[in-house]
């Protein structure tokens, strides 16, 4: 794995594609196109994705797994579907160096793995990508929110929570219930009491 650290600069970008099948579970992490370390993530519907090891670190869940030595073979993520995982992997790649998770990364900096990961402010391009990323229908957005929760990925969580807040902030209570698919299980008296308790918000 020595070539990993001496590889070309981080400007070299990894092309996301389903990984070649048939690798043995004990094989060391792949070397990506730029000579970087990559790991393989496997969705619930058996689709595999190569992802730069450093990008995967944006997820606390994946980082814990990698640190526990689970990164050597395809890592199964049974509750994420292929399309969701494809989007998430793309976001990780675009958020490379994002300050929203750079702080956490610094903690693991000791090993020198992340030296070409200088934190940077999100560029207009990244912001544009984020907007595009959440321009999806309601159910797809909720799937991404669940993925963010499962993966514990701060950047992904920010983007998806923002989108959810934007979607409902100008809705009426009825519209929000409909949007989230909620059933009002209050009695009329209970609801009236809550409206009274938070009167200013219902005026």
């Amino acid at each position: 794995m020595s070539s990993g650290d001496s590889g070309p600069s981080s400007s070299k970008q990894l092309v996301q594609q389903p990984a070649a099948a048939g690798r043995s579970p004990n094989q060391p992490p792949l070397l990506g196109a730029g000579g970087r370390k990559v790991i393989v993530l496997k969705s619930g519907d058996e689709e595999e994705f190569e992802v730069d090891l450093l990008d995967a670190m944006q997820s606390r869940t994946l980082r814990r797994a990698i640190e526990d030595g689970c990164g050597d073979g395809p890592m199964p993520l049974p509750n994420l579907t292929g399309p969701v995982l494809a989007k998430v992997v793309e976001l990780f790649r675009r958020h490379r160096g994002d300050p929203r998770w750079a702080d956490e990364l610094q903690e693991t900096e000791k090993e020198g793995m992340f030296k070409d990961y200088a934190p940077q402010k999100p560029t207009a391009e990244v912001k544009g990508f984020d907007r595009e990323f959440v321009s999806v229908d309601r159910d797809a957005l909720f799937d991404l929110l669940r993925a963010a929760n499962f993966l514990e990925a701060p950047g992904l969580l920010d983007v998806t929570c923002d989108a959810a807040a934007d979607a409902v902030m100008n809705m009426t209570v009825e519209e929000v219930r409909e949007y989230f698919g909620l059933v009002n299980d209050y009695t009329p008296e209970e609801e009236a009491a809550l409206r009274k308790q938070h009167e200013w918000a219902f005026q």
Partner: protein
Amino acid sequence: MDTHGHDRISDLPDHILGRILSLMPAKAATQTTILSRRWRDLWEYIWCSPTTLDFTAEFAAQQTSHEYVRNVNRYLKLHRGKKIHRFLVSLAPDRRFFWDVKQWLEFAAARDVEEISADFTKAQVCLMSVYPFTMPTQLFDCLRLRVLRLRYWLLPLPLPGLRQTPLTHVPVACRTEATGIKIGNIWQSLHLEISAPSLRSLHFFGVILFPAISFGDVTGLVDAAICATDNPFNAPQVNYIRLLSEVAHVEILTVRSYTLMSVAASLPEPGQVPLPLPNLRELQLLMNLAMEPLSYICDFFKLFHLPSLERLFVNLPSLPHEEYTSLGERSSAVAHFNRLKVIKMHNFKEFVSEMRLVRFLLQRTPVLELLLLVVRPELMFVRKQDLQRRMLALPRISPAAQIVVCEYLEDDYAKLRATHEQMCEWDNGSHTSYYNDFVDAQD
């Protein structure tokens, strides 16, 4: 997750739903309490750690004072954060709530607040307090505090019952590390003492009724704008001479008609030495009332000695006709301005009184480099070129002095601006934008 067959979101943990709510406006987020039982308490997340606590506008709009205070107390209890950037409240200055307001300010001070706005816009005449409100001392030790806005308004104007209103002393001592303070529209008797060694900039503007303002340590003060409008029903109440003498070390000063009138009303005794403003490099005079410029300006120069003055800006009233009454000849005792290089006058209309002011200045400025007369075409009855020619013929003791007539923002001379030029715009009626600019500039 699907207890009802279509619930799309409630399987997410509380902290994620709370995070979504905290990205929404407080009102919309609070409404989610009635979505379903699962959502009843999730709104509490929005008060966990916000760094801006804005209890104004929508929040304050419909609540009675009691509800307002109860809700602010309730929400602040939920706050777990260690840091607040902005803390904004708006309520009636009712004595029953002073204890609460004090608690809030202490709460904000303990979290290194940077901006506080205590806006008593909602004050009604009948609710005006007759009891003093003392700012908590913690606030004055707040090192990060950069903006302190105190607004005690009585609206709307005019207020027919004003004179019967029980006005009282609201002692406010202001000891802060703030670098800029702006105080405006104080409709209540206010004893304000400002002691802030690192204060660099101080602006008084708007209507300030009966304020007793004094300064403690303001050694760092560089620029001051004393632009308050006095009580429209009474003679000026503020002792501007004392006020100015307390900030005599400033380098940049803007004063307004009322200040000049107040000064003119207290001419020195014969033989009295003028008060020096030794560091003053730039002076802006905003003459928004129909007042004869030369007399008032001369009176100001008789009372204050300005040995270092380099730039003088005079904003003449934009009146269509000459309506000034002369106070008589007063220019005799005024000393020369040995360093004055630039004079800029706005709204110059070639009125007799204005010409007298120009002649006066040209005779007392040995090193003058530029006299810039800014005209407004709608107020001009002569051609600019003719005016320019007449002005050039004026006698002057500085042979190198240029005299230029130009239109507002016409050319390069627009770059020659007073430090407090915004004040000038504010003076012309757009005070709201001035105030907002101030708020934005601090962010």
